[in-house]
């Protein structure tokens, strides 16, 4: 019942020569404009690692208003709307633990302005579902004080934007108090509320606070996007000992999905694989997930294979699943509703660049909302947020571009086919066994393909058989980059010591190219 989708880790355990798998559906003649990816991994990635393994929804392509048919349970569950899923989660946790309470404006008798807490006050009483006066800073602080003395409050901001008034308490007390008290007091609060751009709600009701809160040390942030993960995450957030800020989206409350009857809790720190793919990794969260999935339909029709990951955990990022994906596809597109400046995408870009720079073949593209207070007019509002058409264009551009990793030789040499680009050169790898097994296989593969002409080649990779005896770890390129694109042509041998800027190698290639380009 529980399927674990984790990038490539689940399929490959180690690289040995008979593990090269070629995507069978692509024949070589179709390669123009596509990527030929040899699935190989230079690193050993064990089976399922990384903390809690939780059931994930596969291929949840739920656009707004459509009912999703995804379900991870073998027997049918029950259909709920997202706000009902949240209510179920809250209800179950309140039944399970009497110290869980809810406080916020209009959560009790009114049932919550988005009906998330409807019926809970009748069931649990006015003290457990507390209607507060309109004093965000103070009732957030009250929730924190209650958490310090033993309760587990769920604090609701009627709109996330109102929590700006509670910033003092959230930053100073919620985030820092556990630390400044030397670990004596824990603050197991959940601060939740809907945010994001709605339908012409105006600037102040359309704020995305995830960017403002993300620097606060000591808090976790999660964003739910489907009824399934909403219920699982709210339960996890309530059970967590850390303060969690739980972002919901105003427009997602009426999503319908079938969720399991039995109890389930998701992990707060894990990302969700929405759609596995090969060509490009699209990272998104909250409402933009649906814009991405809409764009994904178009992209699939156009022949692209995007991998869509809903990062869910905005702080901290799940760099494991993201990393696996980047290692596989080498291209990253981040689609978010946050503002351009200092948003979640900006942090994510930095994190990915820091950790996975070597695996990237193109700069990370980040599509965010415009840096503008959300206008009231419908047309203007539409243009502030990222739309599916923009996502499609971005993916197309991203896949078409390839970064030239070394000197562009096209200036010095007239390529018979102007589209050819020199992509990858030399690899000095500390693992000599690995490298030397790689090349012969590439070579033998090449010789199997006898019917290609160089007009159909768009991208080429030239590898050199290196003398690896004096390898410097600094010049370490990963195997998969070599094998990722196009054909591999064994040009020749460079017997010199690898140079720091690959100058030696580059000039050898130029030389070899000049001599023999009759592939």
């Amino acid at each position, binding site marked *: 019942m529980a399927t674990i989708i984790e990038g490539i*880790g689940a399929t490959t355990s180690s690289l040995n020569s008979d593990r090269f798998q070629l995507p069978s559906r692509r024949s070589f003649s179709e390669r123009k404009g596509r990527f030929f990816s040899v699935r190989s991994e230079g690193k050993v*990635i*064990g089976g399922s*690692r*990384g*903390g809690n393994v939780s059931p994930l929804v596969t291929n949840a392509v739920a656009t707004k208003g459509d009912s999703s048919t995804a379900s991870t349970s073998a027997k049918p569950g029950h259909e709920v709307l997202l706000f009902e899923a949240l209510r179920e989660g809250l209800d179950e946790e309140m039944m399970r633990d*009497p*110290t869980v*309470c809810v406080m916020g404006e209009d959560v009790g008798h009114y049932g919550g302005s988005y009906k998330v807490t409807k019926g809970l006050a009748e069931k649990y*009483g006015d*003290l*457990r579902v507390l209607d*507060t*006066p309109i*004093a965000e*800073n*103070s*009732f*957030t*602080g*009250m929730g*924190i*004080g*209650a*958490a*310090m*003395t*033993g*309760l587990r409050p769920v604090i609701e901001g009627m709109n996330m934007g109102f929590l700006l008034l509670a910033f*003092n*308490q959230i930053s*100073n*007390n919620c985030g820092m108090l*556990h*630390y*400044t*008290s*030397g*670990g*004596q*007091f*824990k603050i197991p609060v959940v601060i939740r509320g809907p945010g994001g751009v709605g339908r012409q709600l105006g600037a102040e009701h359309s704020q995305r606070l995830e960017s403002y809160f993300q620097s606060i*040390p000591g808090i*976790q942030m999660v964003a739910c996007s489907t009824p399934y993960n909403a219920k699982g995450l709210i339960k996890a957030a309530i059970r*967590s*000992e*850390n303060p969690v800020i739980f972002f919901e989206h105003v427009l997602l409350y009426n999503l319908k999905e079938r969720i399991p009857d039995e109890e389930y809790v998701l992990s*707060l*720190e*894990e990302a969700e694989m929405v759609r596995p793919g090969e060509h490009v990794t699209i990272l998104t969260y909250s409402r933009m997930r649906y814009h991405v999935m809409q764009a994904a339909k178009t992209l699939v029709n156009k022949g692209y294979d995007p991998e869509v990951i809903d990062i869910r955990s905005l*702080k*901290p*990022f*799940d*760099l*494991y699943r993201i*990393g696996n994906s980047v290692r596989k596809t080498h291209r990253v597109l981040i689609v978010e509703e946050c503002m351009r400046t200092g948003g979640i995408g900006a942090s994510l870009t930095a994190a990915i660049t*820091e*950790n*996975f720079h070597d695996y990237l073949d193109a700069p990370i593209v980040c599509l965010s909302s415009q840096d503008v207070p959300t206008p009231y007019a419908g047309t203007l509002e539409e243009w502030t947020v990222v739309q599916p058409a923009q996502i499609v264009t971005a993916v197309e551009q991203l896949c078409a571009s390839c970064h030239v990793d070394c000197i562009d030789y096209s200036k010095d040499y007239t390529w018979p086919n102007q589209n050819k680009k020199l992509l990858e050169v030399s690899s000095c790898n500390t693992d000599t066994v690995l490298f030397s097994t790689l090349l012969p296989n590439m070579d033998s593969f090449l010789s199997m393909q006898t019917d290609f002409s160089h007009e159909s080649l768009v991208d080429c990779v030239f590898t050199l058989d290196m003398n690896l005896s004096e390898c410097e770890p600094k010049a370490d390129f990963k195997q998969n980059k070599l094998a990722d694109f196009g054909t591999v042509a064994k040009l020749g041998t460079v017997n010199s010591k690898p140079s720091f800027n690959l100058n030696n190698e580059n000039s050898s290639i130029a030389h070899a190219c000049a001599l023999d380009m009759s592939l």
Partner: protein
Amino acid sequence: MSCAFLSVNIAQPNPLTSNRHSTNAIKLFSPSFLGSTRKLRPHSLSKSLPSPSKSLRSSVFAVSDVVKELKSNLLITKEEGLELYEDMILGRAFEDMCAQMYYRGKMFGFVHLYNGQEAVSTGFIKLLRKDDCVVSTYRDHVHALSKGVPARAVMSELFGKTTGCCRGQGGSMHMFDKEHNVLGGFAFIGEGIPVATGAAFTSLYKRYVLKEADSDAVTLAFFGDGTCNNGQFYECLNMAALWKLPIVFVVENNLWAIGMSHLRATSDPEIWKKGPAFGMSGVHVDGMDVLKVREVAKEAILRARRGEGPTLVECETYRFRGHSLADPDELRDPDEKAHYANRDPITALKKYMIENKLVNESELKAIEKKIDEVVEDAVEFADESPLPPRSQLLENVFADPKGFGIAPDGTYRCEDPKFTQGTAHV
């Protein structure tokens, strides 16, 4: 009603004839006490050192049932008197030692000393049980000491050592102690009041939701006159009165917020009046006299414990030193300082006890000597304690360190043993 800046002859404020449950008698203040920074409140100027019986009737405005029931003239027994004296001496000696240590370079940053205000801390906190909570501001050393936090722990915390009550991570302005229910220590003023409200809420919750019938823990929130212009103060007064939370709001009105005189900052400087505006009792008390404070405190705490709601107690007090050790304290009138120095709470209590033949000099001297040793020992302990090691850097950021997330290799970052040293990328 009252003018902000000009010292004119204003009409006297009308007595608040409230038909709500606040039955406190209202004193009529003489006019023109709102004025320039150099004007003092006339009623304080005209008083000499109060004698016990006289002061009782004129300054305490709570209709104190406790006082009425007293058989004897004395407010305290010998044991209680010694306890109060010891606590105040501890507070004073500790703060003086803090100043010494600061100038010797043993502690840094902002250190706010409590000299002169001991009566408020002692008067209130010595009436509490262990499970009652205290929330304070940055001027919190003495509140922690009165509540029972060992002097050693507080001094180590000030020195930034790992044996401090917050492992050296909080510092002067963040004194926390779970065992003694000291909920901090907050640097921003007004920030602690909602936390205190929350602690009181828990007490109420435990009684009515968790059905723990004996849950009647009271929370005390201490803050200053400057805080009384802050929104959080009013919001919490509202919520506490609305839900009848077991909390006492104690205003330590020392007339100065760093260099801003209370009279220059507040449209109506009588803070106790703001209580009845929210439907709770507002009491004004002479905060330089520990016995008066204690009487008012008894009533307020009992009221909270009985579930009758909060009280706002304004203690007129004074800090002998500057706002912090970095404050040159040039704005305050030396006459004002001298006036309050004459009303030193420790001297007053000493005089009271000796005049009423509760104790003799030698017993008090013995206490002073004992406290000196305690403070010396605290300094020694703090000196000898180790500084926090590098591995402590990220240790308490999360209660559940899984919150640091999953590293690129698939494991949780917290599983890396060196992670708390802060060397890993996050």
